[in-house]
């Protein structure tokens, strides 16, 4: 099985397209999920409620979620933006949950002594809670990244582009080469980012 120059250049193009899709979605999910997790960590009952909503979103099959979003004005329609909205919704849960759990998991005695020593709540957050929760938060980002790289292949179903274009084309034409041209780079991206983020996680782990 040879890769023609045309296929090769299309693979590069769609891989980059895929990365853009994943990158934007993760950036948005992290920008929303981490602050939201921090806020909810201090409100136990609200936190539980938001987590269960996020859990429900997670149970909607991805193809169906893309489909549901299509007819919604402003965020829906054919193309990248609908795909990004769906991917953000998926990536949000692991990031939000790990931020919340990471902060709530900080040793009670550590937090209590920080307050009792006269740290203001902002200082407790920046100097104690976030550094100690960092590893858990990063684990959430890593999980979200790997899942999003896989789920993003379905974006092609609604014209979102990315490596899924190969896969859908290959399935329609019963062409294994095309399917592999989409699946292999997606798998490689997932493995690479998993390894890379895992490495960062170990590097940054507190003490």
């Amino acid at each position, binding site marked *: 099985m040879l890769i023609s120059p045309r296929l090769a250049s299309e693979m590069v193009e769609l891989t980059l397209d895929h990365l853009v899709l994943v990158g934007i979605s993760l950036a948005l999910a992290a920008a929303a999920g981490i602050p939201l997790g921090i806020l909810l960590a201090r409100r136990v009952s609200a936190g539980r409620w938001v987590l269960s909503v996020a859990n429900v979103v997670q149970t909607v099959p991805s193809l169906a979620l893309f489909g549901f979003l299509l007819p919604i004005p402003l965020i829906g329609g054919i193309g990248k933006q609908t795909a990004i909205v769906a991917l953000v919704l998926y990536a949000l849960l692991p990031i939000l949950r790990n931020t919340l759990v990471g902060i709530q998991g900080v*040793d*009670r*005695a*550590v*937090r*209590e*002594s*920080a*307050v*009792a*020593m*006269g*740290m*203001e709540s902002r*200082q407790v957050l920046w*100097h*104690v809670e976030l*550094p*100690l929760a960092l590893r858990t938060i990063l684990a959430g980002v890593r999980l979200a990244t790997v899942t999003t790289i896989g789920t993003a292949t379905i974006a092609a179903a609604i014209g979102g582009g990315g490596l899924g274009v190969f896969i859908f084309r290959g399935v329609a034409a019963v062409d294994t080469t095309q399917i592999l041209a989409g699946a292999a780079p997606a798998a490689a991206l997932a493995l690479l980012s998993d390894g890379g983020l895992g490495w960062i996680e170990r590097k940054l782990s*507190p*003490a």
Partner: protein
Amino acid sequence: MTAPIVSFRNVSYRIGRRPVLDGVSFDVERGETLVLLGRSGSGKTTALKLINGLIHPTEGDVRVEGRSTRDWDAVRLKRHIGYVIQDVGLFPHWTVARNVGLVPGLEGWDRRRTGEKVGELLERMGLPPGEFGERYPRELSGGQRQRVGVARALAGDPPLLLFDEPFGALDPVTRFEAQRLFLELRRSLHKTAVFVTHDVREALRLASRIALLANGRLEAIAPPLEFRRGETAEAREFLACLEPKEEEC
């Protein structure tokens, strides 16, 4: 000054309907070590948290330096008071030196002054800064961690220190040494301390006065010698623990 550094005026603290402290009044005199003795759930830890404003009384008034804890700025009050707890609560991601320098850092001391203070305190605690300063809390034994916790509480030079069963998790030998260090510090630093424990031996050894709490009420308050006379039922229960045949209390 002769005014008490802390005074409880008819203080009650309730969680829902349940009274944790019930109409408690006492003073802490400058320079003394007042030990709050009581069983689990007697309200002694609650009393400590009322002093540094972690919680506020449901009824009555707690005054520090003559001012109600409600009128203090919450952060200023806490930095005015050192606090040591059983689980120590050192920051695991900070070195020993940085942990001890926490309050000076918050107070904006310069690097040199902070460094000197940290070094002096670690030395005093028997933890030479050259050997221990750059270690992390997980690299210390339980007794060493507790001494770092005491150094951290002393770093801002607060006139008042609160101890919440600080030696409760230590083995008997280490605990005995920690108590000796405590007495030494008391002699050299002239700080006021409020010390919570359920160990009557520890109370008798460390206290200038013992305040006995039972079910949220103050049963007795007396110097150790007088306390030994056992004038209330609860005091006799505690004193019974001192008899050689009894199990450890």
